[in-house]
């Protein structure tokens, strides 16, 4: 089976070099052809996208754009739609994630991009969304209008299906022309979405492109960075540093680095009636996309003093993970990934062996593991792929101080606590750099309009053009009707 990724308006398929990415999961092989552009072709494509976005997209009202995206999303939500069916069939093969997990994940994720959610998304960043369409009076005086870049370059990473849609849709909402570079780990979803947009509105399709190069190919990357007006990049710190270093100084570069997330469970959530449900929710956050997301939990800080002890809670989570393994089996790991899990597990096992206040529970196949520590420990990422640690603490309030040194890496905290405690913890966590607090079971599904890593997803993309009050006043001297 061979599929095609990429989307290149204004460039003929025949002129392009195509490479083949091969995937083989559990005996099912699939090839994906991806386009590799020359420097000249990248320039040509960039010029095309800039031109089309200037002449068409910039004059399209935001409400029209949201309507077009909504149409595309509605089709992708429809399980009879050909694109949706492709996604359900091939994404599990490409990424290895369980098919049912992907199906549910896609639906939940796509729902956050329907029209009402998109409007909420815009309203989060623009008190007056019409700023994106025309000059609007500003509270301080004068007028202003927000302009998206003519060419927004996205450098995506990772295998969490559909994640590129985030920044791509953000780009569209601010009327940016977009060229996105897909990751080899999942090159399809962004390609399909772009094709779908082009089917719905061919002119808008001319403002979008999806390209590929092998991660780290400096020449290819440079070709795009040179043309972009704004860059949004995802990846590890090393990759991002390289991208930032190569971005021309006059081009802004927004980076989203890897993050660590964790859970917190109050003793009041640990009575006999509630603890199982809480453990179920915590396990779900671990299972969802095998902890590959920045919002996936690595550690759970669990408060002592509840009817269920932190150690018992770790056993509950272990039990839930075992049940989930039946329903949504973990994907087959590469040897490197298995090595990572094994190294983490062996280290925890040796710790448990040397110190009885630690323990490790795991199944025979090694498809999940839960470590437990009675001693206060620092936040350290787990071995990923369904490995997590329960750390017992006397008071949840003490956690913030312990995680403070890791401010640059923190993202989501899933909290199970009563209202007063939730709000108190929010204050403590926000102060040390946590940018998102969610319920357990929702850690991996941010709500529509969330601020990724605490940033303003849309505002960060625009530049304001302001007509100052002085210009308005001065202009009053010059009309022909002036007295």
């Amino acid at each position, binding site marked *: 089976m061979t599929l095609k990724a990429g989307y290149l308006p204004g460039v003929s398929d025949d002129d392009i070099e195509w490479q083949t990415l091969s995937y083989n999961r559990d005996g099912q092989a699939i090839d994906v052809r991806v386009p590799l552009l020359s420097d000249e072709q990248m320039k040509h494509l960039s010029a095309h996208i800039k031109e089309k976005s200037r002449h068409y997209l910039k004059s399209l009202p935001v409400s029209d754009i949201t309507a077009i995206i909504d149409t595309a999303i509605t089709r992708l939500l429809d399980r009879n739609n050909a694109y949706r069916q492709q996604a359900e069939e091939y994404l599990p093969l490409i990424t290895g994630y369980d098919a049912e997990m992907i199906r549910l994940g896609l639906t939940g994720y796509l729902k956050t991009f329907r029209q009402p959610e998109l409007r909420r998304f815009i309203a989060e960043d623009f008190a007056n969304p019409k700023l994106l369409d025309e000059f609007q009076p500003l509270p301080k005086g004068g007028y202003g209008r927000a302009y998206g870049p003519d060419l927004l370059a996205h450098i995506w990473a990772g295998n969490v299906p559909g994640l590129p849609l985030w920044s791509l849709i953000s780009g569209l909402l601010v009327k940016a022309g977009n060229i996105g570079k897909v990751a080899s780990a999942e090159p399809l979803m962004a390609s399909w979405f772009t094709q779908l947009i082009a089917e719905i509105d061919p002119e808008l399709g001319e403002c979008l492109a999806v390209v590929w190069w092998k991660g780290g190919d400096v020449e290819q990357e440079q070709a795009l960075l040179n043309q972009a007006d704004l860059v949004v990049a995802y990846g590890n710190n090393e990759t991002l540093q390289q991208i930032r270093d190569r971005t021309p100084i006059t081009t802004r570069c927004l980076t989203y680095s890897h993050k*660590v997330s964790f859970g917190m469970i109050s003793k009041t959530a640990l009575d006999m009636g509630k603890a199982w449900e809480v453990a179920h929710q915590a396990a779900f956050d671990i299972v969802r996309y095998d902890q590959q997301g920045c919002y996936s939990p690595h550690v759970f800080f669990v408060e002592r003093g509840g009817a269920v002890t932190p150690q018992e809670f770790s056993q509950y989570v272990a039990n839930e993970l075992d049940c989930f393994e039946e329903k949504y089996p973990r994907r087959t790991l590469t040897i*490197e990934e298995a090595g990572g*899990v094994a190294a983490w597990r*062996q280290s925890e096992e040796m710790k448990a*062996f040397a110190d009885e206040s630690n323990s490790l529970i795991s199944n025979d*196949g*090694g498809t999940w593991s839960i470590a437990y520590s009675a001693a206060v420990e620092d936040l350290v990422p787990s071995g990923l792929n369904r490995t997590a640690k329960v750390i017992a603490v006397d008071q949840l309030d003490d956690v913030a101080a312990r995680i403070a040194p890791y401010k640059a*890496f923190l993202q989501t905290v899933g909290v199970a606590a009563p209202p007063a405690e939730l709000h108190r913890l929010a204050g403590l966590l926000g102060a040390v750099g946590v940018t998102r607090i969610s319920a357990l079971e929702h850690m991996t599904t941010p709500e529509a309009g969330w601020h990724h890593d605490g940033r303003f997803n849309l505002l960060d993309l625009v530049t304001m053009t302001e007509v100052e009050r002085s210009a308005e006043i001065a202009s009053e001297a010059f009309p022909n009707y002036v007295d």
Partner: protein
Amino acid sequence: MTEAQIIETLLEFIAADSAGENEFNAFALQIFAYQFENNAPYQRFCRQREKTPRTVHSWQAIPAVPINGYKYLTLTCCDPEVAERVFMTSGTTKDGVRGKCHHPTLEVYDASMTTAFRQRFMQDHDTIRMGILFPTEQAMPNSSLAHYLALALSEFGSEGSRYLLTDDGLDIEQLFSELDRAVQTGEPYALLGASFSFVHIMDEMERLGKSVNLPQGSRILDTGGFKGQSRELELDEFYDLLQARFGVPRDQCINMYGMTELSTEFYDWGNSTCPSVKSGPHWIRSRIVNPLTGLELPKGEMGVLVHCDLAHFNCVSSILTEDAGIEVDNGFLLLGRAEGAEAKGCSMAVDEFLKAAQG
């Protein structure tokens, strides 16, 4: 068996030409029984796995300690206070604690090293003029590699062999003069050291536009990989460069694979093709297992290496490494450390986190 009996038997075992499966197995079980009895943390480890000398009947079934274990446990049969030498592992715990391997005597280590080194590196030479690209044993008393290279020099280095690293770093002038001397005299020359040192030297040679054609019979031994201490090279590129810079054919560039947690090293028969086939002498055997289940994998499938090194008699003989490998005819392919691959998504992995947190 007592420690003295183990040592005596080991020295005989190493001196023998070979060992069959039965001999290896029998001796491995005796050493296991000795370690089970005298190494208390190891005994607990085995009991937790419900393995004792009574229930273990093959060397493959001897519980293998993850190399991480050295960070948390003192794995020694002898009193750690009386050990002749302590080698420390490079890996550390969060608190900066390094794992330790205690050697009550270096007699066995040295016999193991010299016997295998003679067979695998020296081949038809008794001695060879050597240059060592690594600090001395005095500078790094807890480094097993420093001891290994010191032994190579003292046992097999002909007159004039020397260290080419000083306290100030690489002595490039001395190196060049040694290389030029070898070219002029036609006397075979051997360079031995850490892989990353060779990268630094070759970078420097490139800068200075230097390359030499060492006489036939010259050879190179590198070990340890690049470990972030130099730029990372593909193996093929590395050996091509060695051949180009020093004129030593790739089949005379030997890579040694060893670790502090062992007393025996593995070698290849040159690196004409990479990855090369590695093998060890008759007192060490290896298996490839699934890192998560610990089950042995069929030949040809990639897994992690488990070594059973009889010469490492004082600590634990069987260790579970984090090195990926594939079993092939006459040995295994070493595919580097099966390091915690970075998350394929945007989640942070341990290695990356530690690197970033240290900033």
